[in-house]
Structures are given as structure tokens and as C-alpha cells.
């Protein structure tokens, strides 16, 4: 009697359960495993080519041609020494850095107040004018640019490179900062104006300091886009103002490709940007996804 009493409730409770519980448990186990496998596969597919590039940059050209030495090889820094010492690479690194730095600074100076006004006064059409720079194909402007700036004796100098890279950076900054200012509450500025600041004063002393994360996002992304830009520098740079992407491209215009050096040159251009990206991940993601979730 006591036995049946203790067993029975379990039987009753178990009756409607089996199907669901089995289903749920099997699904509950399968999905996490599937997820881990797929995520691992994703990471491998995205990272492996980069690892391959770094490995090739550490091989001699003989080893690159030897399939037996795909993974087992004696690493050497010769390619890096070759690239950095023989090909003026430090000049190109400096050029890329210098152009990216100043085009970012000038674009922030022009773009942030513009984005502020466009956000606060909802100037959609004016914003479109700036964003046109992102839509229009760069090639369609390059021929006139080349001849205008050649007349001004600017082709081959830093000025024209900075200007052309600002053309890339400015719409990006305006786009990011508009969505940043849109999400910032008006109350603080209004309070500051009640307390006696002028509207411009409220922008400079309240909104601007508060938008520091947005400024960091816009600044980092515009630096990266300028650093990576190829087409404008390909046409507008001179022998002394060549940026890294152009220098890498020129590497292969010769008859046979020196793969080891080419890969180490590619590593030299990508690794600084990836290191920046590692430390500023949060900002980069928020910049790339700016405006993605609003209506």
C-alpha cells in the first residue's frame, strides 16, 4: 500500500511528459553542440587566411613553393628586413599614417558641427548632400580632380591626398555622428541654456564632451578607411607620398612575384589596423552599425 502510494504519483506525472521532455532534452543538447561547431568553423574560415598570410611572410621563397613545408618550416624575418630596408617602406608607413591622421582631424572639425546641426534641425536634404560623397563612384571624380589639382601644382603632395581622403572620411563621420546626436537627449543642452550658455556654448561645453564615445568611433573608423584607401592614392600620390596600399600594389607590377616579401608587406599594412581594431572593438562595431536599427 505504501509502495503503490509512493510510486503512483510519479507514474501519473510521468504519463503526459515523455514526448515533450525527450524532445526538449535532445534538442537542448543538439543545439549547443551544433552552435559550438558552427562558431568554430566560422572563426577558422575568417582567421585561417590571415594566419596563412602571416606564415607565408615568415617563409623563404623556396619554402613557399614547397607543399611539404606548408606548416613545418623554419621561420625567418628576412622578408621583413628586405621589405623594410630596401623599399623605403618606413616612408610609406609614415605617408599612410600622416594622411590618415590629418584627413581624420580635418574631417572631424568639418563633420561634427555639421552632423550636430543636421541632427538638431533635422536637415535630411543637407545630410544627403554630404552622404552623396559615399554613394558616388570615386572614379567619376578622379579625372577632373587630377587635372584641377595638377593645375594647382598639388598632385603628388600631401594636401591633395588629405583632401581626397577627407572625401571618404567626412560622409562616414557625418553619418555616424548624426545617429549619435539623434540618440542624445536634448534636456542637458536646454538646461545649460537656461543657466546662461549660448546655444553654441552649450554645444561646445555640454554636447561635445558628452559625445566623446561617438567622436572616438567616428575618428577610429575614418582613420581605418583612410589607411585602407587605394584608388585615390593610386592616381593622386607621387613617388614620395605613396601610401602603403599603392606601395603593395606596385610590388607586383614586376615580372615575377616575390611572394615572401609581398606577404610581409601585406602584414605590415594590415597588422597595425588589426591591433587598433582589437583595442577599440566596441567603438568600431558601434560605428559600423550606426543607424542600422533606427526606422
Amino acid at each position, binding site marked *: 500500500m505504501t509502495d503503490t502510494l509512493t510510486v503512483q504519483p510519479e507514474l501519473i506525472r510521468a504519463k503526459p511528459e515523455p514526448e515533450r521532455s525527450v524532445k526538449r532534452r535532445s534538442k537542448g543538447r543538439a543545439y549547443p553542440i551544433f*552552435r559550438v561547431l558552427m*562558431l568554430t568553423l*566560422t*572563426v577558422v574560415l*575568417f*582567421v585561417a*587566411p*590571415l594566419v596563412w*598570410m602571416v606564415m607565408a611572410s615568415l617563409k623563404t621563397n623556396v619554402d613557399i*613553393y614547397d607543399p611539404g613545408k606548408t606548416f613545418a618550416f623554419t621561420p625567418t624575418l628576412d622578408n621583413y628586413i628586405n621589405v623594410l630596408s630596401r623599399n623605403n617602406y618606413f616612408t610609406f608607413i609614415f605617408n599612410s599614417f600622416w594622411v590618415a591622421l590629418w584627413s581624420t582631424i580635418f574631417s572631424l572639425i568639418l563633420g561634427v*558641427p*555639421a552632423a550636430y*546641426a543636421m541632427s538638431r*534641425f533635422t*536637415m535630411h536634404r543637407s545630410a544627403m*548632400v*554630404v552622404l552623396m*560623397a559615399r*554613394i*558616388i*563612384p*570615386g*572614379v*567619376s*571624380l*578622379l*579625372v*577632373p*580632380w587630377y587635372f584641377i589639382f595638377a593645375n594647382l601644382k598639388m598632385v603628388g603632395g600631401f594636401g591633395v591626398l588629405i*583632401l581626397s581622403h577627407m572625401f571618404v572620411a*567626412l560622409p562616414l563621420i*557625418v553619418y555616424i555622428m548624426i545617429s549619435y546626436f539623434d540618440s542624445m537627449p536634448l534636456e542637458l543642452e536646454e538646461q545649460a541654456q537656461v543657466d546662461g550658455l*549660448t*546655444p*553654441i556654448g552649450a554645444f561646445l561645453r555640454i554636447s561635445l564632451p558628452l559625445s566623446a564615445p561617438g567622436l572616438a568611433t567616428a575618428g577610429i573608423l575614418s582613420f581605418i578607411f583612410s589607411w*585602407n584607401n*587605394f*584608388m585615390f592614392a593610386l*592616381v593622386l600620390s607621387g613617388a614620395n607620398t605613396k601610401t*602603403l*596600399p599603392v606601395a*603593395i*600594389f606596385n*610590388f*607586383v607590377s614586376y615580372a615575377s612575384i616575390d611572394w615572401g616579401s*609581398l*606577404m610581409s*608587406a601585406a602584414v605590415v599594412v*594590415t597588422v597595425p589596423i*588589426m591591433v*587598433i*581594431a*582589437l583595442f577599440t*572593438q566596441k567603438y*568600431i*562595431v558601434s560605428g*559600423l*552599425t550606426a543607424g*542600422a*536599427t533606427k526606422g
Partner: protein
Amino acid sequence: MTATVAIRPTAWKTYSAWANRHRKWLFAAPAMIFVGLLIAVPLAWTAYLSVTDSQGSVRAPSSFVGIANYLKVLGDTDRYWPAVLRTFTFTGGALAAELVLGMGIALLLWRPFRGEKWVRVAILLPLVATPVAVGMMWRLIFDPNIGFANQVLRWIGIPPQPWLSGQATALPTLMFVDVWQWTPMIVLILLAGLTSLSEEPDEAARIDGANAWQRFWFVTLPLMRTTVVVAIVLRGIDALKTFDILYATKGTGGGSFHEVETLNVYAYGLSFDYNDYGTASTVLILFFLLIIAIMWMVTYRRKGNRS
């Protein structure tokens, strides 16, 4: 002395009041003028060049030819129309693959898990890598003789492929490279959209007995419509204009059979390798109109859907 001291604050005040009254345009105008000048003047010039037979140097004498260039380009089934087709194939194919893969990966990343940070870092790396360097990297990986791609094929017993050097395989290979580099951007945008969704509709559907696929297709995806459109617009514009990886891997003319020559590569070659500015400008104006038309259609459809 006293006069200047008395005047300066007033002058400053007048200026400050003026600046504050006109701050809207004082703030917005410099950026707009900068972009406007860099676009309007060159675009007008390009439009002008497209009705001339300008060649060699834009300062060399050229004559007005009316719409002759447009007739020539629009009747050019040898280079122009194949380039249009390739532009659309490249953009459409790469974009479709990026959206499907991007949505899949975004769903995998959606709910928090341990090591999330590292996966996010990993997918950010292709995104920030310099496209020219990426092109060179894949050029080595896809090298028919020494590349890793063919080595893998040999291991699993598939005959080696020509990849970038094949006339039929070059464009798909480059679409793959584009997918590798830009799927992460779609992932990030879609993930931002997913994270901003409220959990209630999904929860309600779960209680009503909807399975995972039904919940995705009938609940999550419709809610994500705006985000998906934003992703398509942002990525689509850039994909149409792809230049770096095409030029870095195949060079002038998109290879010896023009197998990867898109509109952008074609126009660049006409401008800077052949110095045929008349034809180049015509191609560019047509390309520009095409992009504007696509943009207009997408925004028009969006507005139409919402109302």
C-alpha cells in the same frame, strides 16, 4: 583707450549673437560646401567630357560630338554590356551570399555565450584588413601551383582549379573574396538589429508552439526588415563600386579576357590607362545614373512599404 575697451565686448557680443542665430548653417555649411565643391565641379566636368571626344589630355583640343559617345557605349556589346552584367553578377551574388551567411552567423551569436568576445574579434579582422593586402593574400592562396586552395583540393582528391587565372572561375573567386571580407559587416549590422528586438514576440510564439524555424521566419525576420534593408543599402552601394580587390588581383582591364571587368574597373582603365576621357566619362555618367536609380528604387520601395 577706453573706447576700444568699450567697443570690443559689444563687437564680440554682436558677433556671438549673429553666430548663434545662424548656427544652423554656420555648422552645416562648411562640410556641405566642401563635399559640394569636390562633387559638383568634377561631375559637371565629367558630364561635359562625355559629350566631347577628349583624349590624351583634357587640355588637348577636343570637339563637341553630342550624344555620339552615348550611342557608341550603349551599342558596345563587346566591353560595356558585359561589364554591366558583371557588375550586377558580382554585386547580386556576393550580396545574397553575405546576407544568408550573415544572418546565419548573427543568429549563432545572438544569445550570449562564453568566449563571445573572441568570436567577435575574429570576425572583425577581415573587415578592417586593407582590401589591397586582402587581394594579394588571396592571390597567393588561390595560386594554381603553390596556393593553399589547390593543396586542400589535392588532399581531398579533387582536381586543382585555375581559380583567379581561369576565365570562368575568376569572377566567382573574387565574389568569394568579397564574401569573406564583408560578411562580418552584415553580421554586425544584423546582430545590432537582433539585439534591439524585444523578446516578447519570440516568447509568445514559443508558447504557442512554433518551432525554431517558424519563429525565425514569421516573427524575427519580419521584425528585422528595416535592419536588413539598411544592410542591403550600405553593402550594396559599396559592392557596386568594388575596385580594390579586382584591380589588385587582375590589374588593368580585369584580366586578359576582361573576365572581371566591372563598370568601375572599365571606367578606371579608360580614364587612366587609355586616357580616353570622352568614353570614360560617358561610362561614368551612365554608372552614376544607374546607382542613383537603384538608390531611388530602394528608398521609394521602403517608403511605399511603410505607408
